[in-house]
């Protein structure tokens, strides 16, 4: 079986998820044993538009992005959303919280209306085209990334958790962040990260997005019980716009 040809594209993002791939270091050689990269701006100079798998990093924030992602979708047999910006819109969605023009002025002041600075409400990749595989997180988890690539190489649908971060947090033997009177998003956020943030002394920031069926009503109740408000919770959720 010939190796699948893989192209990696970046949209609006910090390119930190691609950096995680570069950070695989020695394992990149293993990675290359099952895929053949044909286009990867951050990792190689060759360039081909003939690919099987398109890996998309970043969110869709400009009209021309929409056009570009649609073209990629047409060519790719499998389209992979890489990292929070691609999977859920991520931090780029912060700008959806107010009138677009205000946001533009805040960022670009008097130049805001220059044509090359045109922008629109942020969308996740799935808001525009069909996504086949999600690699969640900000940044992505290297272990999960390599697992998913191996699955793709073997023609297997990867097992991506549809349960909350609490599962992995409990397995790690952590003390619940609510015991420190902090709002942690763990109970409604998709696991798969190994509860990295709670294991290192932070609450869950929500970078992997909601589980399929988050219990928002329960969250309301929990805020009350811990002397917090829904506004406190919403502020926490705003960062990744889950």
């Amino acid at each position, binding site marked *: 079986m010939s190796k699948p040809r893989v192209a990696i594209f970046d949209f609006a993002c910090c390119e930190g998820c691609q950096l995680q791939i570069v950070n695989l270091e020695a394992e990149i050689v293993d990675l290359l044993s099952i895929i053949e990269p044909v286009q990867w701006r951050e990792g190689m100079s060759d360039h081909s538009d003939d690919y099987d798998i398109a890996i998309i990093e970043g969110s869709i924030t400009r009209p021309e992005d929409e056009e570009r992602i649609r073209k990629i979708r047409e060519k790719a047999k499998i389209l992979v959303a890489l990292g929070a910006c691609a999977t859920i819109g991520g931090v780029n969605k912060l700008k959806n919280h107010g009138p677009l023009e205000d946001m533009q002025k805040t960022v670009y002041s008097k130049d805001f209306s220059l044509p090359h600075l045109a922008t629109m409400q942020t969308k996740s990749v799935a808001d525009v085209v069909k996504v086949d595989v999600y690699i969640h997180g900000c940044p992505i988890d290297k272990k999960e990334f390599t697992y998913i690539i191996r699955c793709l190489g073997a023609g297997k649908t990867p*097992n991506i958790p*549809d349960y909350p971060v*609490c599962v992995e947090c*409990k*397995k*790690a033997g952590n003390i619940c962040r609510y015991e420190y009177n902090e709002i942690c998003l763990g109970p409604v956020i998709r696991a798969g990260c190994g509860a990295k943030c709670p294991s290192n002394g932070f609450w869950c920031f929500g970078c992997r997005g909601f*589980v399929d069926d988050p219990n928002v009503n*329960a969250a309301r*109740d929990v805020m009350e019980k811990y002397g917090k408000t829904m506004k406190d919770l919403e502020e926490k959720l705003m960062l990744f716009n889950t």
Partner: protein
Amino acid sequence: MGTKKVSQKDFEKWVEKLIGLQKVFGVQSKDDKYEFGALLKAENLRLDYDITILPPKKYFLPSTEQLFSFGESGFNSSVDGEPFILFGVHPYDFVAIRQLDVLFSMKNNDVYYQTRRNAATIIVCDVENISENAFSGFLGFDHVEKGFDLLVTKTGSDYLVESGSDKGKKLLSLMENAVDAQAADISKRSEKWKKNRELLKKQLLKANVNELPAALGKAYDHKIWNEKAEKCFSCGSCNLVCPTCYCFDVQDDFGWDLKSGERTRSWDGCMIENFATVAGDHNFRKNKSDRYRHRYYRKGKYVPEKIGEIACVGCGRCISACVARIANPVEIFNAVAEA
């Protein structure tokens, strides 16, 4: 099999000796809480703990473990059978291990569990401080009188150490300056057990435990399942911190050659949304309330009908672990007993 009395200082010396002898896992502090971990120094051992974050079952059923690897040489399984000492297991947690012993050998023997279990020497210790949600006193799991390898009880400034097996006896023989416990010492311990039985009743269980399977049998349509489950995150926290939960998931992963690889199992929980989903995405327990009820039926009816003992040991970990505060078995058991 004989009970010894030893001073605090000689007790610590003995612990130090055990650490030199075998791998020892003991209770230590973690922030303002406690956990079982590799014990490197006797002084780190905290037998005055109230409860550990996770129960000691992780030494027999690790949160994730390899079932086997596969490759050109076929399927290869191995499990570490190196002897170890598990130091400071509270009686209720020991009861849970005893239950898992039965369940993992029932009909089919689980060789991974069994190998680790056989490798362990379990040192039970009586409870010194009471955790906020304990109710083992209502269940008779506040102390144990048999089954352990060693039982440690603090009486005043001394320790009483009883051996309950040959393994325990061997370790106990290493203790220096130990004297035979006298009737007065033993009665001090009995006093402590009596006191602990009353203290370990922080959550007021009114239901009669023996009648619980029958009461649950009649409570299938009780409104409490829905009421509680509405607030459930399906996060499985109650399952994962439970000393008697033992359900697991199985997953495969390849190596980079896409030929070799491994199969692992890891803790799972019946409260998690897709626990009962089959291929084709049909979920046989789609409703939260069905999953919620299932958990309490396992604890109070299904497993007890198999092993003859309630499968909740009253540790109260689930009560503390549930952010939504809906996971109190005492509330459930009281409600169904009243119905």
